[in-house]
């Protein structure tokens, strides 16, 4: 294609076919009349388009696609197998986990049982010790009470003798005579007991 700019600033495109035709001095009849319908297919273009398309289709079907599709299929199978294996491992893991959980649960129950038994034994022992301590305390208290009563009685008897002596002496000095201590004892006892 060549471009010419005329004196009137007009741009004219000239095409190889036109130049060739002008050189030969013979335009095709179709070009002369300007009758070109681009919708009407050319027979030679149909031939080559069909030939190359069917060749590509045949190559795709029997040569080019099979190894690629087989590779994809092989990869998909391997992925599927690996996924299945992973699923199996998951199942094993689940089983092991449930076994572990069951053992942990049993151990926990056993530990709880041991703790409860120990607690009961400890409570029983504590109760025994408490009872023994209470009994000992009661014995000690009873013993102390006896000793106290005895001391009190002794003190009272001693005080009674001393008071009797003082009273007899005092009364003897008041009346100016010796009083019999034994004879006045009953009076003294009656006064002290009242």
């Amino acid at each position: 294609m060549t471009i010419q700019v005329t004196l009137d600033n007009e741009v004219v495109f000239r095409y190889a076919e036109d130049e060739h035709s002008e050189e030969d001095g013979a335009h095709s009849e179709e070009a002369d009349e300007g009758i070109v319908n681009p919708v009407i297919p050319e027979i030679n273009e149909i031939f080559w388009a069909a030939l190359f398309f069917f060749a590509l289709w045949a190559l795709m079907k029997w040569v080019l696609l099979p190894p690629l599709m087989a590779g994809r299929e092989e990869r998909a199978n391997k992925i599927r197998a690996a996924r299945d294996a992973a699923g199996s491992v998951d199942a094993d893991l689940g089983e092991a986990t449930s076994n572990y959980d069951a053992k942990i649960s049993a151990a926990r129950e056993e530990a709880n049982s041991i703790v409860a038994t120990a607690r009961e034994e400890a409570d029983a022992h504590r109760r025994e010790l408490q009872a023994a301590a209470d009994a000992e305390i009661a014995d000690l208290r009873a013993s102390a009470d006896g000793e106290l009563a005895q001391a009190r009685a002794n003190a009272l008897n001693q005080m009674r003798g001393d008071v009797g002596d003082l009273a007899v002496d005092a009364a003897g000095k008041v009346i100016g005579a010796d009083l019999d201590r034994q004879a006045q004892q009953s009076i003294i006892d009656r006064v002290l007991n009242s």
Partner: protein
Amino acid sequence: MIFGLEFPSIENIVEWPNFLFKDSELFGFNKIGFIHFLGLVLPAALFFIAGRQKGLVPKGVRNFVESIIDFIEEQIILPTIGAEGMRYMPMLMSFFLYIFIANITEVIPFFQMPATARMAGPLVLALVAWVAFIAVGVKHNGMGYFKSVLFPSGVPKPLYLLVTPIELLSTFIIRPFSHAVRLFANMLAGHILIVTFAVLCIGLWAAKPTVIVELLTFPGLIAFTAFEVGVSLIQAFVFTILAAVYIGLALHPEH
């Protein structure tokens, strides 16, 4: 002639002279034929290199190719046909890559022509899809396939007078042409758009007083070129997913 610019006529932007077998009407090999040849060679080379790589973990080219396979599987086959559609992977993969290569040459320097902007390629591919879905329908449903398409269940019998001709036309006659024209027209329109902006850029650059307009046309050309990259991908995807939908409908016409 518009604004002093002579725009090329349609035959100048879509027709290419033969450079092999120049005189043969059937075997004449031109730029369009060469692009179709690339549509065979490039995907084949890519997949061949990817297929030679060993190991479970894809890397490099194989990673890229497996991404394409995943894309076709997850975005086209599974949503439209289901898992049983994997047997159509070679055909659908061929559709996608062949069309993409034929489209993307629109923005590749020295090509700058989508082979799909010529009717031949889209028509061939649409006819292949048409034959494929009818074959799939007959294979899986016998001749009852035609009955289930032409006489859909649940329609009152008097309406068959209306529905059956419509289904006949839309499914078996118009479908391959709409399938082809959708791709062809999109790519031809994109090609004309880019050519128009390119001509504007060249013409306005030559006519210096109007160079200021270049500030609009050249970014426009860049933008439409980028846009056509997306269109190339989307049209390849649309054609392929439609073929998959037709096959899925043929497998289960009751749906």
